[in-house]
């Protein structure tokens, strides 16, 4: 809401209050500041001048040379303007002046002729193109009357005061108006509101001769008031009114339209003027749309109307889309002689729906959407009539049409001082509270307790808590103390949150970087990772209204997201990359929220990286989380992965995840030029596999005996098979087994490999003898030979 301070002064005395003080106080009472326009900060040394003479420029067809009297002297100015005449009063930017946008004006020569300044347009004086009247669109601003020559221009049009832009919260529709803001100012500075002058109706009524109103659908139109004005003279509004409209952000059109806009800005009540001679029988019917009805609105667009929309009609046709926009068929034109002024209230939900469905949001609809008081039309209708007569735009026909079938009762709100203090944490007395409410014109009555009666325009006040807020903001949020809640609560992570933190810490320690990617993805992502048509992950949660195909389903796997990030990093020439994401995946359920599971997906590539570095990251993670009994098994059927370099991770009998080298086709699909590795772990499941209590194992007292073993086995024998046998046979005496070499090639027969292990034996209670160890060791070798055909080398 743009509030020109010069206009505000009509309703409230703020003499001597600095703009900053005004703004700061209003911010603290709830009207946040969104900017201040101050002409005096940008316009300097622009004065009133009078054009004495205009001559064609000797060397340029499109330029003229003017002699301009600026008070102290007569100066020559060259201009290309075409809308000026001799004797016009115009704003002149003198040599050394500043105009909008910080542009400095200096004297100079234009095609050989001296020019000592510039004649200014509205645009050059800082007005937005959208509010400049058509007649001045690309011409010089011609002042409406004689001003003292040399007078600072800003004083002539009263532009020295700033325009303050306030943010109006959606509950305060009453503040979308000059008077609403003036009320806030008055309440904040202990002033009284000065009401503007209104028309006083004559005793006899003649309006019935000209017009009538019927409301057929009072649920959508609670009140309709109308006035008729005749002997209309359409012309430009006076300059002061045009300037106020422009400052408030509206383009002046003509006196009748301008007055309706002016009063709308004043009170927040939309007003529409119909050309009464175009309204059949002068009869206004407020009704729902008829089947297949259309209307051409004021912006010359034909609108197809839908059921349940409300129109203003005459007996033959729709003449306005109620509360949204007037119809072209009853538009006020320069030829208009008589107008019917509509000041009505409409159901806000209906207006919102209509304006949304036809995609048209107007000054009127945006106000109706937020709610307009039923009591406003009576005041507003007489304010317009006053201005019309005062400005000589027409003659008001005595009498008023006011259709208000179901008058609303006044809202009465019982409230307690104790409750107010309980919520605010204050110590206010009854007198304090009543004082604050009074500033807002909220009447307080006494019944069994206190009852507040808000003024009609405060549609947001309905409950006791609403009054608490009013008291709090007038008391001042800044005056409320600062204390801390008293209850003895303690802060702590849940077990799950703690495990998650541990897991992330382990990954960070392994040099893996955390990423965050979108929860919604493309459906095609699963094709890109070669997932089978029948995979359960294909059953995805779909958005009704996605931003686009690439964000159309909730992800059922993090693998595509991780690959996408690997790809981006690869293509940005990041050499070696380790990343992980911990996040939710979604699977739909019938008539219920989707299942959300937390997944942990790791992706790596780089010169040093291979399957075993990824496996190392995973093992460090599992060890850090104290997960026991995990093992890896070859997986040759996971479509995303290299069939020879992929494993499933089991904890006990649970499959917890898959890891491996990415399939060359997937790698190609993601334009990653190097071998990449991905581990995809079900973190929800993994969390349940952690050992909560870690127990201390005594540090061994007796020495260990180490034996190295190198055996020859067939290629398909796995390390896990060998280890399993070694552990089984080694029993309690075997402390650990570690592979330290795998060799293929010379001296090893085709289809075989040599594998070497370091075995450590130890007993808890004694020093092992060589004999004992030799016995176990040879048993191990025998067993390996028997079960796997292993030959000692």
């Amino acid at each position, binding site marked *: 809401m743009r509030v020109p301070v010069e206009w505000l002064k009509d309703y409230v005395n703020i003499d001597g209050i600095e703009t900053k003080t005004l703004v700061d106080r209003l911010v*603290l009472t*709830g009207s*946040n500041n969104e900017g201040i326009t101050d002409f005096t900060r940008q316009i300097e040394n622009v004065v009133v001048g009078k054009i004495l003479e205009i001559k064609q420029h000797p060397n340029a067809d499109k330029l003229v040379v003017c002699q301009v009297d600026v008070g102290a002297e007569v100066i020559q100015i060259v201009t290309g303007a075409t809308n000026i005449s001799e004797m016009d009063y115009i704003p002149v930017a003198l040599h050394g002046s500043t105009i909008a946008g910080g542009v400095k004006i200096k004297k100079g020569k234009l095609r050989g002729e001296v020019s000592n300044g510039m004649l200014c347009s509205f645009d050059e004086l800082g007005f937005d193109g959208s509010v400049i009247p058509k007649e001045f669109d690309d011409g010089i601003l011609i002042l409406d009357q004689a001003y003292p020559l040399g007078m600072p221009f800003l004083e002539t049009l009263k532009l020295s005061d700033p325009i303050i832009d306030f943010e109006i*919260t959606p*509950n*305060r529709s009453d503040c979308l108006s000059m008077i609403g803001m003036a009320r806030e100012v008055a309440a904040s500075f202990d002033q009284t509101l000065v009401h503007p002058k209104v028309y006083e109706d004559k005793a006899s009524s003649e309006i019935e001769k000209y017009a009538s109103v019927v409301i057929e659908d009072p649920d959508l139109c609670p009140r309709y008031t109308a006035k008729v004005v005749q002997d209309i003279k359409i012309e430009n509004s006076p300059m002061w009114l045009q300037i106020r409209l422009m400052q408030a952000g509206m383009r002046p059109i003509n006196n009748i339209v301008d007055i309706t806009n002016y009063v709308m800005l004043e009170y927040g009540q939309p007003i529409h003027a119909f050309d009464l001679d175009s309204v059949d029988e002068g009869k206004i019917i407020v009704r729902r749309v008829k089947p297949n009805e259309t209307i051409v609105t004021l912006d010359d667009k034909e609108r197809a109307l839908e059921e349940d929309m409300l129109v203003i009609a005459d007996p033959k046709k729709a003449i306005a889309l109620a509360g949204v926009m007037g119809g072209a068929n009853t538009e006020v034109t320069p030829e208009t002689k008589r107008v019917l002024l509509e000041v009505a209230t409409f159901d806000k*939900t209906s207006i*919102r*729906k209509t304006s949304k469905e036809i995609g048209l949001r107007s000054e009127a609809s945006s106000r109706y959407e937020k709610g307009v008081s039923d009591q406003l039309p009576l005041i507003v209708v007489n304010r317009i009539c006053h201005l019309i007569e005062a400005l000589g735009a027409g003659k008001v026909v005595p009498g008023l049409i006011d259709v208000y079938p179901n008058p609303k009762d006044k809202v009465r709100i019982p409230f307690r001082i104790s409750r107010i203090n*309980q*919520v*605010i*944490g204050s110590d206010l007395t009854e007198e304090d509270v009543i004082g604050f409410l009074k500033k807002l014109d909220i009447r307080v009555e006494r019944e069994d307790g206190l009852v507040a009666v808000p003024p009609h325009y405060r549609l947001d006040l309905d*409950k006791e*808590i609403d009054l*608490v*807020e009013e008291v709090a903001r007038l008391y001042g*949020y800044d005056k*409320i103390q*600062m*204390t*801390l*809640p*008293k*209850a003895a*609560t303690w*802060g*702590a*992570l*849940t077990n799950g*949150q703690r495990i998650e933190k541990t897991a992330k810490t382990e990954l*960070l*320690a392994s*040099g893996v*970087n*955390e*990423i*965050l*990617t*979108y*929860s*919604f993805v493309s459906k095609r992502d699963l094709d890109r990772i070669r997932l089978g048509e029948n995979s359960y992950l294909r059953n995805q*949660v779909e*958005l*009704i*209204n*996605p*931003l686009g195909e690439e*964000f159309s389903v*909730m992800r059922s796997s993090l693998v595509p997201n991780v690959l996408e990030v690997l790809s981006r*990093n690869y293509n*940005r020439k*990041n050499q070696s990359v*380790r*990343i992980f994401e911990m996040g*939710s995946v*979604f699977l739909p359920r019938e008539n219920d*929220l*989707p299942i*959300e599971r937390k997944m942990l997906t790791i992706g790596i590539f780089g010169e040093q990286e291979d399957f075993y570095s990824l496996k190392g990251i995973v093992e460090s993670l599992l060890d850090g989380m104290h997960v026991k009994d995990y093992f890896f098994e070859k997986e040759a059927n996971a479509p995303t992965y290299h069939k020879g370099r992929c494993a499933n991770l089991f904890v006990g009998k649970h499959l917890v995840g898959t890891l491996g080298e990415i399939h060359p086709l997937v790698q190609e699909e993601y334009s990653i030029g190097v071998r990449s590795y991905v581990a995809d772990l079900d973190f929800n499941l993994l969390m349940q596999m952690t050992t909560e209590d870690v127990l201390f194992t005594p540090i061994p007292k007796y020495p260990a005996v180490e034996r190295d073993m190198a055996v020859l086995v067939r290629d398909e024998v796995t390390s896990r098979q060998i280890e399993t046998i070694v552990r089984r046979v080694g029993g309690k005496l075997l402390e650990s087994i570690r592979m330290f070499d795998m060799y293929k090639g010379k001296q090893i027969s085709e289809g075989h490999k040599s594998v070497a292990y370091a075995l450590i034996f130890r007993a808890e209670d004694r020093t092992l003898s060589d004999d004992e160890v030799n016995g176990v060791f040879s048993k191990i070798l025998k067993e390996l030979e028997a079960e796997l055909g292993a030959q000692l080398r």
Partner: protein
Amino acid sequence: MKEILNQLLKSATEEIHSAPGLKELEEIRVKYLGKKGEITSVLKNMKDLSAEERPAIGKVANSVREEIEIILEQVKEEKKKVEMDAQLEKEGIDVTMPSKKHERGHKHPLNVALDEIMDIFLGMGFKIAEGPEVDTVYHNFDALNAPIDHPSRSLSDTFYITEDLLLRTQTSPIQVRTMKQQKPPIRIIAPGRCFRNDEIDATHSPMFHQIEGLVVDENVTMADLKGTLDMFAKRLFGNQTKTKFRPHYFPFTEPSGEVDVSCFKCGGEGCRFCSGSGWIEILGCGMVHPNVLEECGIDSEKYTGFAFGMGLDRITMLKYEIDDIRILFENDVRLIKQF
């Protein structure tokens, strides 16, 4: 004999001092002190002395032996040190050459900021509550007193899965779930992903992150709200931080407010981060609306509460001077490794 002994001491001392290395010192030791050394042979002649002379000479012999030993030891230590220094000198390296640093991983900047914020609230007795990203219209809007025709419910603002399911637009549904599950006293923060139907540009993302807080108990007041948020701001942005509470409007709280903190970049003087105002808006807050408490089964006469919410992305961007939200979701490791 005494003279012989002193003579030996003198010559031994000279030899020791002129010995070039440890090996020579050992030879000197053997020569004088060894089993067949010169002192020993002198002592062997003791038997020729009278009983009166013997103890005196014995004393002299011992002290000469001790003295030689001491000098020998001293010089040996010196030589050892010199030799070791020479050895160390030879082993010298260029310490300015690159290190063998182990590269650790880095948290995403959003989570660096989130962890810092969570730590502050954990320290103030808050627990951390979580909830689903896909939630019901009821939890996201209805239970939060959002008017039935509120624009935020529209398809152009909110992503829907079905008529009843949506992508949460705020983390407030977690508050609703908490209040329905737990009796006061409640003190939680609810961080998480949120979604709004916004086209992607430098300042908008259809996915973003919020942190909301909720405190419900008997006698919780706006003063508690102010105190809590002021303390939070001081912990996050530094002790000199000031807070300004302004009235505002939210459907789920009343009275409602917005909180500005004194600009933590310029200290309140005015700079590009605070658009010259000296203040930065970071929080929305208010007293939980009685309608919301009642909807969640909490007696609004007995209990009051406050709630607040902030945008994690915005705070992260302000704090680290990141000017484009898109960069947060690109996950270029060159960004992440800075945190």
